[in-house]
C-alpha cells in the first residue's frame, strides 16, 4: 500500500448542458492535473476511482449533491489536498488541513 498527498493549487469546473448539471471538476497541482471528477445522479452507483500507477493522478466520481460542498471547500479552505491511496480497492480523498474554528470565509 502506498499513497501520495497532492496540494491543490487551482480548480476548474463546468456545467454540461447535455446533462443539465455539473460536468467536470478538475483539480490542478504544481505538477499538473491531479484529479478529474465527474458527477452522477443521487441514485446512481458511484464508479470506483481510477488511479494512476504513479499515484500522481486519478479519475473519480461524486454525487451531484457533493458539488456545492466541494466548491465551498476549494474556495474557502487553504490548504486543500488530494490523497491518492492504492490500498485495494483504491481510494481518493479531497480534504482540508487542520482549520482553526471561527476563522471565517477566505
Amino acid at each position, binding site marked *: 500500500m502506498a499513497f501520495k498527498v497532492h496540494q491543490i493549487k487551482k480548480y476548474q469546473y463546468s456545467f454540461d448542458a447535455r446533462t443539465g448539471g455539473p460536468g467536470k471538476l478538475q483539480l490542478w497541482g504544481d505538477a499538473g492535473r491531479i484529479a478529474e471528477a465527474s458527477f452522477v445522479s443521487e441514485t446512481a452507483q458511484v464508479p470506483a476511482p481510477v488511479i494512476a500507477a504513479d499515484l500522481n493522478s486519478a479519475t*473519480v466520481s461524486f454525487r451531484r449533491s457533493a458539488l456545492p460542498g466541494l466548491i465551498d471547500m476549494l474556495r474557502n479552505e487553504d490548504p486543500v489536498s488530494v490523497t491518492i491511496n492504492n490500498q485495494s480497492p483504491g481510494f481518493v480523498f479531497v480534504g482540508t488541513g487542520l*482549520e*482553526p474554528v471561527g476563522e471565517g470565509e477566505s
Partner: protein
Amino acid sequence: MASRAHEVRKYQYSFDARVGGPGRLLLWGDLGRIAEVGFVAEAASVPEPVIAADLNSATVWFRRSALAALVDLLRNHTPVQVTISDDGHVDVVKAHGLLDSLVVCSTCSPALVAAKTSGIHEAMRRLIAYCGADASVQICPITFHLDGDSACGAYESGDTGGFSLDAQGRGQVCLFDVEKENRALPFTGANAPLIEDQLLPVHEAMHAWFVGRQPTYRIQEPFCKLVSFVISEVPGGPEYCWFFTSTPDDHPDVLMKYLCEMGMTTDLAAQVLAQTAQAAASKGAALTDAEFADVVSAVMGQDAVPAFQSAGILP
C-alpha cells in the same frame, strides 16, 4: 447523567470518492480528537453515537445534507463546543463566549443600555484578541449589571464593582455605573460606548477569563489591571510598568512591580496569558502558582520565581 463539554479548536474534513460525497469530519480540541463524524445517505438510518467511557471523545454520524451547516458553524462561529453525555447524546453547538455577554440595567433607558453594550462588546473583542483565548464556555454568557439589582445588591458608597459566579455557575459583573460617584467619565449615552469607558468591564471580565486557568487573586489582580489599561487605552501606554513601580509589597498588584523589574512588557504579558490558556487546557485544570511562574519564566526567558517570592506568592 454525566456530560463533558469540549471546545473545538480545529476541524478537518474530506470528500471521499468511494462514496461520492462527504467522507469524515474530525473535530479537535486542546486534548486531541474530540469527535469523528461520518455521513450517511439521506434515506439511511443514522447510527447511534459511540462514546468513550471518559466522555472525552465520540464517533458520530450525520446525514450528508448536514455537512454544509456544520462547516458553516465551524468556519464562521466561535466558540464551538461538543457536549458528550453518557446517556448517548452528542451535540455540536455554538457556545457562548465573552462576545455573547449580556448587559442589563433596571433603571437605564434602552438607548443607554445599547450604548454600553456596544462599548463592552468591542472591549471583549479586543480582550480576546490580546489574550489569545476567550473565557471558559462553562461560565458564559457573562451578565454585566449596570446598576444595583437583585443580583448585585444595593450600591453602597465606595463600591467599585466585582465579578462572581451566579447559582448556575455563569459569570456576573456588577458595575454600579448608574450610582457610582467616582466614574472617570459621566455615565451618558455619548460616553458609554467609548473604549476608555470600559476599564472596569475589562478588569472584571479578566477575572472571569482566569476561571479554570489560575485562581490566585494576587496573580489575577495585576494582570487584570494591566489588561484593562491596555484594552481601554489608559493614557501613558502602551507600556504600563510606570503604574506599578511604587506598589507596596502588601498590595495585591505587587507581582507586576517585580515582573516589570525583570522586563515584563505589554507584548510579553499577552504571551503569558495565551500560554496560560493553552497550558491549563492541556492540563485540564487550573495552573498552580508554581506552574504559572513556569509559564512566565518560559515567556521571559529567565527564572521568574524570585519575582513570585518577592511578591509573597511562592515560598
